[in-house]
């Protein structure tokens, strides 16, 4: 296995209305690692994940995918990255199966069938009911089913534990460990502790106090 990090970010700075949310943030994620971003509400966890997912552009700094600047290989990066955000990304009027089918047309999601993915995440029997009948926890599980199907090496997860019960959290942890065992990488934000050995953390708190 090469020592080249999967994802590296250098000197990331993000300013909102000329007010730095964080500045000069550096870090790297190697294959087989899980990086947890921690910090109080409003310290920029979601923004950082959005920047890593190339949804938002940083004010300054750069991202590198396997050593190459992401602005030069964004297409390749997008096929190698899966993002599950704060919102589920599911249409409430469609069923989980329909939602996953739609997503699989847009993104490389063909490791397992949508039915198998939903069964693995604990939604067997709910494949064909409209999503608006699901509970918040079930919706979150359905969103995480994307990860079971994904061929992506890198997972970016924004608060994946929200609304999950104990069993759901255990399922997710198993999923994450399975992914890194296969040489993948995960960046996730959460303020809850995770039962995962060798978890690396990045605390954003220190950045909130910036003098005028």
């Amino acid at each position, binding site marked *: 296995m090469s020592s080249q990090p999967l994802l590296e970010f250098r000197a990331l700075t993000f300013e909102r209305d000329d007010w730095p949310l964080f500045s000069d943030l550096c870090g790297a994620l190697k294959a087989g690692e899980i990086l947890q971003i921690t910090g109080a509400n409003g310290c920029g966890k979601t923004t950082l994940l959005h920047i890593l*997912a*190339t*949804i*938002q552009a940083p004010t300054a700094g750069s991202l590198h995918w396997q050593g190459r600047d992401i602005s030069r290989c964004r*297409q390749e990066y*997008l*096929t190698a*990255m899966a*993002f599950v*955000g*704060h*919102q*589920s*990304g*599911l*249409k*409430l*009027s*469609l069923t989980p199966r*329909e939602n996953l*089918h*739609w*997503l*699989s*047309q*847009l*993104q*490389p999601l*063909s490791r397992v069938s949508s039915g198998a993915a939903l069964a693995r995440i604990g939604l067997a029997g709910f494949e064909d009911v409209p999503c608006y009948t699901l509970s918040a926890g079930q919706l979150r599980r359905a969103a995480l089913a994307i990860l079971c199907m994904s061929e992506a090496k890198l997972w970016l997860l924004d608060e994946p534990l929200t609304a999950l019960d104990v069993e759901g959290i255990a399922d997710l942890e198993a999923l994450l460990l399975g992914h890194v065992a296969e040489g993948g990488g995960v960046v996730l934000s959460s303020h809850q502790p995770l039962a995962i050995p060798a978890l690396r953390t990045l605390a954003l708190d220190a950045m909130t106090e910036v003098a005028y």
Partner: protein
Amino acid sequence: MTSLGGAFFAVIQRDLSIAMRHRGDLLNPLFFFLIVVTLVPLGISPEPTRLAAMAPGMIWISALLATLLALDNLFQADFADGSLVQLMLSPEPLWLLVLAKIIAHWLVTGLPVVLFSPLLGMILSLPGAGFLPLLLGLALGTAVFSLLGAVGAALTVALHKGSVLLSLLVMPLYVPVLIFGTSAVQRAVDGMNYGGVMAILAAVAAFSLLLAPFAAAGALKVGING
């Protein structure tokens, strides 16, 4: 594996099936269209000659307002539930997916308005010669409304009070279409040749088709950071 055409048609298909599950919402712009046109004789005069003189303009203006009404839903619902982000993280070219969304949106909002317009022409005593150019013109015109409107909808997608702002942004851009569209009908009613005007309208539509998806894709990348 994903494929270009697959992603394009998947987006259209999904948006259409969502629309079919909210059939009530689908009819709203149509009823709006009908009600606005009904207000014209009530507000002005029921006299057929006066109505006929106003018919092309009134039908066009109400069609414009009806499509405008449905416009802020183009991206906003997808933004709220996060599926817009998933769409934008697809390795497929974003402009193509945006075009698919615009086409689906036109099929559920623009097309019904077009198909409904002859009925309104009848209500407003539009002379017989005006019906064909009305249909043709509205078909092209509502397509331009959806295409240009998509840029505005993308820019305002993350804003709280986006819908009023959206109207403010796109309505001035609709001026040429309104002018050419109504005058095509007027010319036909007056017994003149309207082919030239229709050609201009088609050119505007083709031009919008060429540029608007790129502009809307760029606008989305900016707009989701509202």
